[in-house]
């Protein structure tokens, strides 16, 4: 007879193998490290002049500042939402995190692929041709500092139980752990876009 305990252990091992379950602290460490790299990449943009920051390949595509402002608009939505959900949660921290079906899918779909997978931008998150200056970069870095603060605070709550409403619909709510990964993957996606703009500017 195999005891339930052994079954449970086996089940956990299989889950870990398929990577949808992990140690919460490992997830937080990985998200903090990704945020550090994001900050470093954007810090270097501060040395760019306004020609480099506002150059665009064609009139309908974004320049570097527009990419960052797009991210800022998402930050304006998600960061206060995450902050209030963490503050009002009475959950206790849980050592493991299991990615949700939808959340895991959303987070993964955000990551840029080898071949460019274009996505549609919601109108209210499109900064095309808005008047933007370098303060956009400061605001972005400020949001990353806030994000680090929230990642630190999230150690005290359950990443599985706290749920965050998405900007798509308040009906679609994702686990806090998935929301963090989704949010950061979205940033990584647009920082890759910024790298492409830099390359085009150099070669164009």
């Amino acid at each position, binding site marked *: 007879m195999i005891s339930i305990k052994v079954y449970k252990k086996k089940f956990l091992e299989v889950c870990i193998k398929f990577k949808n379950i992990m140690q919460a602290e490992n997830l937080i460490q990985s998200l*903090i490290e990704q945020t*550090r790299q994001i900050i470093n990449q954007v810090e*270097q943009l501060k040395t760019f002049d306004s020609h480099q920051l506002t150059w665009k390949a064609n009139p309908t595509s974004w320049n570097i500042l527009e990419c960052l402002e797009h991210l800022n608009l998402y930050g304006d939505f998600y960061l206060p939402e995450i902050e209030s959900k963490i503050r009002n949660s009475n959950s206790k921290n849980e050592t493991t995190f299991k990615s949700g079906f939808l959340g895991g899918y959303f987070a993964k779909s955000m990551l840029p692929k080898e071949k460019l997978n274009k996505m549609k931008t919601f109108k209210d998150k499109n900064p095309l041709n808005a008047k933007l200056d370098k303060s956009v970069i400061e605001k972005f870095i400020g949001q990353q*500092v806030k994000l*680090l*603060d929230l*990642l630190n605070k999230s150690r005290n709550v359950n990443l599985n139980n706290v749920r965050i409403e998405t900007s798509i619909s308040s009906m679609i709510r994702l686990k806090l752990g998935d929301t963090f990964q989704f949010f950061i993957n979205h940033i990584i996606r647009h920082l890759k876009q910024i790298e492409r703009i830099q390359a085009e500017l150099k070669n164009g």
Partner: protein
Amino acid sequence: MKEIVELSDKTIILERNDFLKVKGSIDSNVYYVESGSLKVFVLDEYEEQIIRFGYKENLLASLDSFLTGRPSAFYIQAIKKTTLRVITKQQIEKFLQKESNRVLWTRILESLILQQLEREIDILTNSPKERYQRVLKRSPQLFQEIPNRLIANYLRMSAETLSRLKKS
């Protein structure tokens, strides 16, 4: 200190303003600064408070993470382009298996404790002039390596006050 640096098999280069470490990360490495300079700080409601600096030939670490293996609240950021040698905790633990090395390591830790005590007195000293004089006497090299506006933050005074004190 040479013995410690020789344990390293990894070098990292930070561009100006690059972060080596941010709040909440676990970083149990010890770093040796080959060139450049860095600041260690905490953010208090978005306000930076510099705790210490690292420059040429200094050892630098998030000592709390190093000792406990737990997350640390410190940020470490390059002030200018910086080259660091990385010494991992594992490398140091292996090094400490030898008795004679433990004596050396204890010396380094003792000197760190003394530095921390001096810094504690700095912070508790009321007079800006006295704070300035204490640091100038202790680390004259600091004033060669680090921009004034950052030293002023470290000394908890305005850049104007520091420049007045330097002239007097």
